[in-house]
């Protein structure tokens, strides 16, 4: 993700899409639109452009008027509002586009929004001049006016010619279009020079022509007559304006009502009766859709036609997943604050979007399910139903089911249409209907009580503004007032949305690889003996500059792969909810540091360990409410999930305030299983960390949540795979704390390059304890072969790397080599190498599936001279050395396996 602010253009595009999807009666969508608009007005670029800012704020007023039901909530209004966005886009492209401004005004005026075109006539700086009322407004900008008079004269002449043409050949659509365009332009420019009469007349005739253009009325003599009449009328009006301008004659606004009446008369006569009021039709359709599938739903045809546009579909899929995630989160939040209308709205909106897009893609099953759920939520929103746990379960269930369906779609997209599955959603539809019916009959389930006695601070904050809506709405308006309040409250709360673009991960990986190569190549060039031999200060300076740039580039490229850990954390919310229900415990999940960024490739890998640790905390850590009360703790336990960066690591903590780990119990079990020797002394944390061993469990009974001793093993394996480590800290009676140390990124590793014969290997720095030239006094052998070295009173087995890896030309003499003390999983070993070459950050490259799981090798990297160096995997290395016995392998059979 790229955290750049979204451009004005994107915001406008976003608005255009949103408004196209709005159905009459759907005020929450208008609320969404307002949100985007808010960001638009707050945008730097807009702020510096007075005209655009003015337009945006006029638009905002119009939307607000719409929400307050001051403007008609009809399809026509939305169409005009959509037009307005196009005009704003035009103005964005060309700030001088007065026509677009005028058209903007007339669109708004046509739906009854009383705006003063003067506000937009020339940007904010002109407002001061509004005082001199004597002069007609259109005279303010003489240049513009001249232009207008000239152009309009031409256009009117052209119109006349075209109309006469049309009389001869009535079906000439080119001519109709030309006339239409001319009137459209006149309308626009007239608006921009503040001649509202001309603009509205042109607008009216334009509407009529639009009907003609789309074959709803025919171009007969009557229409032609009318167009000519309007043309004449406009000519007169323009002539009068010219008179006013040139000769100072007092301006007399022409009476255009007669003409307008004529036009609307013709319009009404020709097509009025046949068209149902769009608002009613749409509203009726929406009502009907909840009860039965829309007639356009395919009867389960085997060839899914949504596959036609796979781009659109894949966009839908990824968006839908995001929506579903946000739904889930919000539902869980709702459970805490069942009466927060803002949260209901936050759930409603994604369902609405899924419904809209799925309908568009002809995914009727998804569409119906989303629609039914949306209806259910709408009832809740409008207080026809009380939020209860039944509804929450349904919504969560629907969310899960939609996810299954969309996952299937994603499979279909990847693998082919034969994977397409029809899902039966009737069960949900029945449940939803039952729920709606139940609510109306006043038999709702028990109302949800906030689960948590102590709501996390974050939620309390979120509830704040919603409880005190800034817009005082008239109480008579029922549901709409709530929405208006919410729509207004919404934007204020949504501050943390970051603008971003979506990039194909393969492209990103490609970039990262290319940058990695660049860095290496640059080092190679620099160390080329020819160049290194030069001592030109300019060259050196340029080189350090180049290094700086490439390093910067590499950093940026790497950071592009980083994503906030938020999403992973948020998945845990659901887990905690389900677990606490299952175990009958009250658990609050508090999350901190969700914005900490981790490598995108790590996201999936930390999910499993997190799940197991959270399970462990809820199942074993937090006690039952009654027990907690006995111990004087609040009934609801707290699990704290936090992430932060420390040095070159990401630390993830999972802390609970439960009873902590029972060290005695672990000791007992460990003794039973022979893991520790009786009588020997172990530090408490050593004992505690035994729980990470496979199959180790202290649970007396195995629940369906945990207790098999698998979980902690999974955690440890998972974390170590990421080259991290995990440890447990516990205070009896107070709680336990799991600490996960993870590397910042999977792509780069900090390592020490060592030489063994002619080969070079990289040892991860995290595993290195120390290195030294061994003293032969400390060297011992067992049975002449098992070699050990005494380092700080510890006997460490020696691993001769050249033996293990079959390097023929390495030094055999321990006293001449270097010993690197490494540690893995608490086991220390002394690695014998020939030489330490230096510390280096290396980019890890996989050796490919072709060579995976080679014991002792974690991957490869490209060293400064362009050759490949192998990165050592110490866990594999140690176990390989154990398998091969103290003698190791001799070079020839090491290669042969």
């Amino acid at each position, binding site marked *: 993700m790229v955290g750049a602010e979204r451009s004005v253009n994107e915001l406008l595009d976003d608005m255009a899409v949103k408004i196209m999807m709005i159905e009459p009666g759907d005020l929450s969508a208008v609320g969404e639109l307002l949100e985007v608009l808010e960001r638009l007005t707050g945008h730097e670029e807009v702020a510096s452009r007075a005209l655009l800012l003015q337009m945006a704020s006029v638009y905002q007023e119009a939307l607000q008027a719409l929400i307050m039901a001051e403007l008609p909530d009809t399809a026509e209004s939305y169409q005009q509002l959509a037009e307005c966005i196009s005009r704003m886009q035009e103005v964005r492209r060309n700030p001088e586009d007065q026509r677009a401004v005028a058209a903007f005004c007339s669109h708004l005026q046509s739906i009854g929004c009383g705006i003063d075109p003067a506000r937009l006539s020339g940007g904010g700086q002109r407002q001061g001049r509004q005082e001199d009322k004597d002069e007609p407004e259109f005279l303010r900008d003489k240049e513009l006016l001249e232009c207008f008079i000239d152009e309009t004269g031409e256009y009117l002449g052209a119109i006349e010619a075209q109309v006469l043409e049309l009389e001869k050949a009535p079906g000439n659509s080119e001519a109709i279009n030309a006339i239409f365009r001319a009137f459209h332009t006149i309308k626009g420019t007239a608006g921009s020079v503040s001649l509202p009469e001309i603009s509205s007349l042109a607008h009216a005739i334009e509407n009529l022509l639009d009907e003609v253009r789309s074959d709803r009325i025919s171009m007969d003599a009557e229409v032609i007559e009318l167009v000519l009449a309007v043309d004449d009328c406009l000519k007169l009006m323009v002539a009068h304006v010219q008179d006013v301008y040139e000769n100072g004659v007092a301006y007399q606004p022409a009476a255009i009502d007669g003409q307008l009446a004529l036009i609307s008369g013709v319009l009404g006569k020709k097509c009025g009766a046949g068209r149902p009021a769009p608002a009613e039709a749409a509203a009726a359709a929406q009502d009907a859709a909840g009860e039965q599938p829309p007639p356009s739903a395919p009867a389960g045809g085997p060839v899914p036609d949504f596959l036609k546009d796979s781009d659109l579909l894949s966009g839908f899929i990824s968006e839908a997943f995001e929506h579903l995630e946000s739904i889930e989160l919000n539902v869980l939040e709702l459970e805490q604050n069942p009466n927060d209308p803002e949260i209901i709205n936050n759930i409603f909106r994604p369902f609405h979007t899924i419904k809209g897009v799925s309908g568009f893609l002809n995914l009727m099953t998804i569409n119906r399910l989303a629609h039914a759920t949306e209806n259910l939520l709408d009832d809740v929103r409008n207080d026809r139903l009380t939020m209860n746990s039944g509804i929450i379960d349904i919504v969560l269930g629907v969310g899960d089911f939609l996810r299954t369906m969309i996952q299937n779609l994603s499979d279909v997209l990847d693998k082919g249409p034969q994977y397409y599955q029809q899902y039966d959603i009737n069960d949900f539809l029945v449940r939803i209907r039952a729920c709606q019916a139940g609510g109306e009959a006043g038999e709702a389930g028990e109302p949800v009580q906030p689960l948590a006695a102590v709501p996390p601070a974050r939620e309390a904050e979120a509830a704040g503004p919603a409880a005190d809506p800034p817009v005082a709405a008239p109480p008579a308006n029922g549901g709409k007032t709530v929405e208006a309040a919410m729509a207004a409250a919404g934007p204020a709360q949504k501050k943390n949305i970051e603008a971003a673009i979506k990039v194909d991960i393969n492209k990103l990986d490609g970039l990262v690889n290319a940058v990695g190569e660049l860095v290496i190549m640059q080092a190679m060039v620099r160390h080329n003996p020819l160049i290194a031999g030069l001592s030109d200060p300019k060259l050196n300076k340029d080189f350090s500059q180049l290094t700086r740039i490439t390093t910067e580039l590499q950093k940026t490229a790497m950071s592009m792969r980083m994503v906030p850990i938020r999403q992973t954390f948020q998945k845990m919310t659901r887990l905690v909810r389900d677990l606490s229900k299952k175990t009958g415990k009250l658990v609050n999940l508090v999350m901190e540091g969700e914005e900490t960024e981790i490598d995108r490739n790590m996201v999936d890998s930390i999910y499993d360990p997190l799940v197991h640790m959270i399970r462990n905390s809820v199942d074993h850590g937090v006690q039952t409410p009654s027990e907690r009360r006995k111990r004087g703790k609040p009934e609801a336990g707290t699990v704290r999930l936090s992430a932060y960066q420390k040095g070159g690591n990401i630390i993830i903590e999972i802390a609970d305030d439960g009873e902590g780990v029972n060290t005695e119990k672990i000791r007992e079990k460990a003794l039973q299983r022979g893991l520790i020797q009786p009588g020997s002394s172990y530090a408490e944390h050593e004992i505690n960390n035994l729980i990470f061993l496979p199959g180790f469990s202290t649970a007396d009974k195995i629940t369906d949540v945990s207790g098999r001793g698998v979980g902690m093993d999974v955690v440890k394996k998972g974390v170590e795979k990421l080259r991290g480590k995990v440890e447990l800290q516990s205070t009896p009676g107070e709680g336990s704390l799991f600490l996960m140390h993870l590397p910042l990124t999977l792509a780069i590793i900090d390592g020490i390059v060592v030489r063994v014969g002619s080969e070079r290997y990289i040892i991860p720095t995290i595993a290195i304890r120390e290195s030294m030239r061994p003293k032969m006094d400390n060297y011992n052998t067992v049975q002449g072969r098992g070699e050990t070295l005494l380092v700080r009173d510890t006997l460490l087995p020696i691993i001769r790397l050249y033996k293990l890896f079959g390097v023929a030309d390495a030094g055999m003499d321990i006293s001449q080599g270097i010993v690197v003390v490494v540690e893995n999983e608490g086991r220390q070993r002394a690695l014998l190498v020939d030489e330490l070459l230096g510390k280096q950050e290396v980019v890890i490259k996989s050796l490919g599936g072709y060579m995976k799981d080679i014991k002792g090798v974690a991957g490869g990297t490209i060293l400064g001279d362009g050759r490949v160096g*192998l990165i050592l995997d110490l866990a594999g290395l140690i176990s390989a050395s154990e398998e091969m016995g103290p003698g190791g392998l001799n070079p020839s059979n090491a290669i042969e396996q």
Partner: protein
Amino acid sequence: MATIEQAQKKNVKALAGKYLTFDLGKEEYCIGILKVREIIGLLEITAVPHTPRYIKGVINLRGSVIPVLDLRTKFDMEAKEYTERTCIIVVEVQGESGAVLVGMIVDSVSEVLNISETEIEPPPTFGGDAVETDNFLGMAKVKGRVKILLDTDKVIGETGLGRQAAA
């Protein structure tokens, strides 16, 4: 038996096309030109431990690490000193996780040939397991010389390696 041969004849039809030919000792081998990514001279190879003998190690192919194997060793042919004609043919083979690049060390590369279906015959069967005929798509007789059509996916694909490792 007859049906098998018929089936093989059928398969042979699909084999016609362009091939890159290269030498191993006195034998001439071909691989489908579409499988070949590039031909490079010998680079410095980093040995990887605990791999079969014929895997020489890994090289840096413009930033990616790819494995390289010696085809002579793979076919249990007599090893030979590398010369300036020795080169690495980088081919794309199907792995478990999609296509991967693998380098093959061969004695020398000769030419690109157009082989028609009439010139191709199914691989002969040899007694015992001296020669793994699975590795070959067929034989082609071109201008009186016999060329062996190599199935790279089988010989050096991951499945081929897996089979080797298991054996």
